């Protein structure tokens, strides 16, 4: 009898997750916004601003990328469409050396950064979601902080 209830629980949870996923995808399609869940914290729109300019990029679920760069005080805004991938540095483990690669539509590399950290889904520490990128994985060196932007 106990096994039966455990089985029912597993079925209900699986059904809930499946239906939630279906609804998430539908919501994403209708609103054109990424609904981020556990394990997909990288997805969505990220932006950073400094005295020199504003950078924003959107990592979509289908692997496509939208990149916007506005330099200050220039008025032109560069908009680039392409794709992105997250993979380990050559010969390194994905757990320790994940890198974010952005590519233009013609295949040229737009950026290539080490992912220093991203706010976990269940974080109760951060008020805002951050993505910290760095040119290399050397501790205590240059890093760029991006914030999740409301789409």
């Amino acid at each position: 009898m106990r096994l039966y209830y455990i089985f029912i629980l597993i079925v209900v949870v699986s059904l809930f997750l499946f239906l939630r996923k279906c609804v998430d995808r539908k919501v994403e399609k209708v609103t054109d916004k990424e609904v981020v869940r556990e394990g997909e914290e990288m997805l969505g729109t990220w932006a950073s601003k400094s005295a020199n300019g504003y950078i924003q990029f959107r990592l979509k679920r289908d692997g496509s990328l939208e990149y916007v760069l506005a330099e200050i005080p220039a008025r032109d805004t560069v908009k680039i469409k392409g794709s992105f991938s997250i993979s380990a540095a050559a010969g390194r483990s994905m757990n320790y050396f994940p890198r974010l690669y952005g590519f233009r539509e013609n295949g040229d590399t737009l950026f290539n950064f080490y992912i220093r950290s991203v706010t976990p889904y269940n974080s109760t520490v951060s008020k805002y979601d951050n993505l910290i990128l760095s040119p290399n994985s050397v501790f205590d060196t240059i890093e760029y902080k991006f914030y999740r932007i409301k789409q």
Partner: protein
Amino acid sequence: MNIKISITKAIIIVILLSACGSKSNKRAVDATDLDKVIQEEAAQNPAGPSRSTLSGDDLMQLSKCEDISCVQLFMKERSGDFFYTKKGEYTSLNRGMVTDSAGKELMMPFSTVYFSSEPQATWRIAQTVHKKNLSDQLLNEFMQKGFVVVDSFRYYATEAKCYQYTSPQYPRTALFYSPTYKPWYMKGLYMKPSWLGYVFEVHYE
């Protein structure tokens, strides 16, 4: 039958609500508030190092030190910019990209400060700067204080050509400037540098 329909509706409502309730999405920032958020977080974080090298005044003041405790006290006041590496060495907290002679980019502290700590050594203070623009900036600072080249020679401490500068405004002070690929007196973080370092050694006599 009605109960079953009600339960199904409730489940659908729960799913719809949870679909809209992504925790990550709730922690998103409005693009228009980005400036405010960045400023808010910067105000909470402790201030980082504000400079990459000691100034000309600092080096001249350090050169007047007669013992290690004087140097340690002087550098303690600058602990926001430099950290104590080991006896006789301080390293700048400001780090960045330095390009070596092969064009390879290396991440390293922008400068290191050395002093002779051996009991029998002639008292010396030197700063090695790892970036040309910072070196030019520091050399300009000395030039603005009236320092001019009075001599040049091959210096055994850097195994390179060294330029001696003096200034009528600072009669007992001499600057020895030497761009080199060797560490000053074989001291330092890097024993075989592949990039050009700029040694500023200041003597007070």
